[in-house]
């Protein structure tokens, strides 16, 4: 479980996160939704320590990540996987080497064990026989899968996904969403997903937090979200014609 308490972050006077308090639960897919520019990525980067928050607490179970030193953070870092918006696979390494990379750095596994683990992770994301391909040779959906495989290689307790299905066709997007959701349940991870895609919310939104202009505006699950009378959230949900039509019909 990760609890964020009264988190603030600004960049040169432009305040991006304002007093955000939210809890992300274990074994669930926790979605953070909001418009582009609302501060989702910044929030996630604060959570994982890529950006230093100005004020507030980030509790990983009981450890306050925001106030740990670099070396103390290592303990948490080893338990943390992240899926970046563009995949962020290492261009100079092939698929297998990409997945093995975190194992090389932090485990004493033998080469065979590492390859076995890589194959296991690839299989888990439904990819086979791509070990020797380079990122440039993969399609968008395959890159995302390899990135997921790399993120789970080290058996993390916490999984962060920044817009996992941006740039994918709707069908592949759902496949990726479901894959993340299945893996979350299977390994009982605390998974946090940034998205602006209502499809994802309806598919896998165990818990949903809506961020608007850097503030937490609403919290609940995918069933509650359609019933909300929160004006900003409704503007967000029913931005598309499709959702408006569905609403009329129901």
């Amino acid at each position: 479980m990760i609890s964020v308490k009264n988190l603030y972050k600004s960049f040169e006077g432009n305040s991006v996160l304002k007093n955000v308090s939210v809890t992300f639960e274990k074994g669930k897919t926790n979605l953070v939704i909001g418009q582009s520019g609302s501060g989702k990525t910044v929030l996630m980067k604060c959570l994982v320590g890529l950006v230093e928050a100005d004020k507030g607490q980030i509790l990983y179970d009981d450890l306050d990540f925001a106030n740990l030193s670099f070396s103390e953070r290592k303990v948490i870092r080893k338990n943390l996987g992240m899926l970046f918006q563009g995949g962020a696979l290492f261009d100079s390494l092939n698929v297998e080497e990409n997945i093995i990379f975190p194992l090389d750095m932090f485990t004493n596994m033998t080469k065979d064990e590492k390859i076995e683990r890589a194959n296991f992770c690839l299989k888990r994301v439904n990819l086979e026989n791509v070990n020797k391909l380079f990122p440039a040779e993969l399609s968008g959906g395959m890159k995302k899968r390899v990135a997921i495989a790399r993120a789970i290689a080290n058996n993390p307790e916490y999984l962060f996904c920044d817009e996992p299905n941006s740039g994918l066709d709707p069908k592949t997007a759902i496949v990726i969403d479901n894959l993340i959701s299945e893996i979350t349940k299977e390994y009982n991870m605390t998974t946090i997903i940034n998205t602006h895609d209502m499809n994802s919310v309806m598919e896998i939104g165990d818990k949903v937090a809506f961020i608007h202009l850097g503030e937490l505006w609403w919290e609940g699950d995918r069933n509650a979200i359609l019933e909300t009378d929160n004006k900003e959230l409704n503007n967000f949900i029913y931005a598309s014609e499709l959702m408006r039509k569905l609403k009329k019909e129901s």
Partner: protein
Amino acid sequence: MNLFYHFGSYFVLMAKVFKRPEKASIYMRQIIVEMDNLGLKSIGIVAIISVFMGAVVTIQTVFNIDNPFMPVYAVGYTTRQSIILEFSPTIISLVLAGKVGSRISSEIGTMRVTEQVDALEIMGINSAGYLILPKVVASMIINPVLIIISMLLGILGGWFAAVFGGILPEAHYIIGILLEFSFYDITYALIKTIVFAFLIATISGYFGYNTKGGALEVGQSSTKAVVFSSIFIILFNLILTQILLA
């Protein structure tokens, strides 16, 4: 102001780069990879430039000190000294600043804008150290080798010019080349080369690592990397020459 800012953040970055590596074996592996990428892949251009440069220096020397009172060894000696003291260490380092510097900066810059650097950080890896240190060490090892090759080929280029251009008897050239050979000159050249290698790798690493934005900015960083590496090579050339030869 801007310049001070860059100086400051350059040194902050260097403090990160020279932290103790997480896993030495992986850094060793990277050093070997980088020696290949940055060094062996530069041999071609170094060889071509050196041979032609040696030839031109010889021809220039012949025509500029064409005087019956000049001793027979003058041309060979002058060619050798120019190549060893300046042309190989300084000019070839400038060429490497262009070739290797832009490569380092665009590689790291691309990794930065595609979040690969963040991916390293997430894993708990000191990204600055992992990306820059092996390149610095590899350059400081391999550039001296390139410069020695350049010296030999430069002198060979001069010999070609003398023999095939028919502007100077071969024997005179060789007498000059062998005259009063001092190992200190080579040491001086290699010290310069190693300092230049450090400058190229760290300055280019700095601009690459601090790239923000997208493809356009990657290009701008690599231009800056080349420009500033070159300026600092020229600056340190003056300083080191003062210190080492004075």
